[in-house]
């Protein structure tokens, strides 16, 4: 009990220094937590993918389409429950910096395969009935202030021209891991116009979304689909939705690795700061430690005092940092929704915060503790400040 009291009193002896160190730790833990959240936001698409969905695309690369006629063939393959398809539209809303995902879908089946998109029944009805209508995610609609019935114009980059859509429905995610910033409309409408402006590109889809009957057999179904189109003019590549999403991330892996590294660098920086504080503290108190030794306290108690103080300072900063992460992440989430549709702090991040704090505290204490234990009583008593 007395030891604890001593540790607290000790850590308040240099109030300014302690406050500065705690502030430093707070900033470090805050940025560490945010960086970790950025990384999990990067993987959000993978986390949200379902095991029962397969994506079939052209084996050459994503930019090549598949013929519409494959739909029936895929549907007949054993283990397939339902099939839908879509094309990436890549339209620009007013200006290039207003980026959001927009694509054309065969909506009826697609919405069945994606139960996590929740649309009120009357809106869904209205959307399915009107060919020129579109659906937007709630966050997207809020961002641009769209209401049901608004006309939205997109400038096509892949399909030239200005495209007008009537917003007929707004979807919500089933839970907060679902991307609410997407925009989609009827594939049939896209195809109708393409037939007029570029007939050779009509009746082609970007990808097929396949729902399998039993997720355990997803791999076999994928192989069966690819075999069905082997040596055809458009060979297919079928993979689970997760693998498909991971493929995108593996291309930007270098950035993810860089962010991971940087998140550790910040811990190292703060480690240097806390170690500095502890080194100074211990040096000033060498005389006291010698007195402790004279009184018969061993290395265990002395290092306990040093580590204890280090832990008190670091953990105070860590806890404040963790608490602050939540409001800051909220601001980030609304500011960066273009880049990261999903920005949630995961429990894992909080555990890592605590672990990082503890490691910093222990590393910072090692050297001063070692010095305090090693110094002989006579030397310690002789030393002044």
């Amino acid at each position: 009990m007395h030891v604890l009291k001593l540790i607290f009193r000790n850590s308040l002896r240099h109030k300014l220094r302690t406050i500065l160190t705690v502030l430093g730790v707070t900033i470090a833990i805050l940025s560490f937590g945010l960086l970790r959240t950025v990384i999990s936001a990067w993987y959000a698409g993978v986390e949200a993918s379902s095991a029962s969905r397969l994506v079939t695309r052209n084996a050459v690369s994503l930019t090549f389409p598949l013929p519409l006629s494959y739909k029936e063939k895929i549907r007949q393959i054993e283990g397939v429950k339902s099939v839908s398809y879509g094309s990436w539209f890549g339209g620009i809303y007013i200006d290039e910096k207003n980026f959001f995902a927009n694509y054309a879908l065969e909506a009826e089946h697609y919405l069945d395969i994606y139960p996590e998109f929740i649309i009120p029944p009357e809106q869904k009805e209205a959307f399915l009935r009107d060919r020129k209508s579109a659906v937007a995610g709630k966050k997207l609609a809020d961002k641009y202030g769209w209401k049901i019935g608004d006309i939205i114009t997109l400038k096509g980059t892949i399909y030239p021209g200005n495209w007008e859509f009537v917003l007929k429905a707004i979807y919500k995610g089933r839970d907060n891991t679902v991307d609410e910033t997407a925009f989609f409309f009827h594939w049939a409408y896209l195809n109708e116009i393409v037939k007029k402006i570029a007939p050779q590109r009509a009746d082609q889809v970007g990808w097929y979304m396949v729902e399998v009957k039993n997720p355990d057999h997803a791999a076999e179904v994928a192989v069966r689909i690819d075999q069905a189109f082997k040596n055809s003019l458009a060979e297919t590549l079928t993979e689970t939705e997760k693998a498909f999403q991971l493929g995108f991330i593996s291309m930007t892996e270098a950035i993810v690795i860089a962010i991971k590294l940087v998140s550790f660098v910040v811990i190292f920086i703060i480690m240097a700061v806390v170690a500095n504080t502890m080194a100074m503290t211990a040096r000033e108190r060498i005389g006291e430690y010698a007195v402790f030794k004279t009184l018969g306290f061993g290395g265990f108690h002395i290092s306990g005092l040093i580590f204890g103080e280090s832990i008190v300072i670091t953990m105070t900063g860590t806890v404040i940092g963790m608490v602050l992460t939540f409001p800051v992440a909220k601001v980030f989430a609304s500011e960066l929704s273009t880049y990261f549709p999903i920005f949630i702090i995961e429990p894992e991040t909080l555990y890592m915060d605590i672990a990082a704090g503890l490691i910093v505290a222990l590393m910072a204490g090692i050297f001063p503790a070692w010095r305090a234990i090693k110094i002989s009583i006579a030397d310690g008593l002789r030393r002044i400040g």
Partner: protein
Amino acid sequence: MKIPFSYSLRNLWTRRLTTSLTVGGMALVVFVFAAVLMLAEGLQKTLVDTGSDDNVVVTRKSAGSEVQSAIDRVQASIIETQPGIAVDADGRRMVAKEIVVLIALPKKSTNKPSNVVIRGIGEKSLELRRQVKISEGRMPVSGSTEIIIGKSIAKRFKSGKVGEILRFGLRDWRIVGIFDAGNTGFSSEVWGDADILMQTFRRQAYSSIIFRLQNPTEFEVIKQKIESDPRLTLEVRKETKYYRDQSEMMAKFLRILGISLTIIFSLGAVIGAMITMYAAVANRIAEIGTLRALGFRRRNILAAFVMESLFLGLIGGIAGLIFASFLQFYTISTMNWATFSELAFSFELSPHIVLKSILFSLIMGLTGGMLPAIRASRMNIVEALRGE
């Protein structure tokens, strides 16, 4: 009278552990700061160097990059016959109709497929790119299924040797050469015959047309002429601008990320410097009193302590830069968001970045040291002398 320089230096040396920890913290911050700037610089240099100032790229209107663009044969021949295009020694026009598509190739390190740009080239394509040299093997014979690959592709992707076969689009393609395009985007491309590739991928249209201007100053005139032609729905850009546009989003992302990170990190390092300097002042109260008693003025004391913290910053900055300069040997590849394809680039240390980093570290030292230095200079002589 000034307090000698060595006083500040010696003081740092006496408290080696504290000094090195503070410097270490600052060095890490400068390292991150420099690394991000170097990355953005490297990316932009790679993409900007890819273009030449007298080359012009024609793509379909509102297509951001060649990958999204399409120019049909009729439009292509209209462009081809425009006046103002340079001619070579044999009297042929310096123009190339190219097709750009993405294919997925497995990477050497992970065996995972990654998107690669494959460019169907015309006769003049190589000549139009002065920076591209065949470093091994030969050019593909036109009208054959032969390809050449960029040196970054050869390094990072499977089957990257001359004589090997790549299979895509239901055909076998023999690699007959490797080309070196320096630090440009072309090094991350595969080149083959445009017409054969169009057949293979069943494309009716070219992706882009590249031509050399006879007179670079006439660019605006030609641009005006092509873009206002009612038969064409095309966009005309200088090659340099075309590639700069591509790098913009990524470079901006890197810069924003980097600057916001370093600002947060530097707060940590500034706090570290502040702790050190406050302690340096607190430990030397009697010393400061003595100095004042000897006749040194307040501003001399202030200067000495500010100098000391500037030194801390400078050492940290130099150490960080030394670490960062090693990054130049490191090449990273990532997805270019404008084209969805792989692009390899390296960290680039420019004098500009060196200057910025040193300045940044000095500012960190100054902000950390200012308050403690002011406290030191404000001390009352008598109290300070009694202090110890």
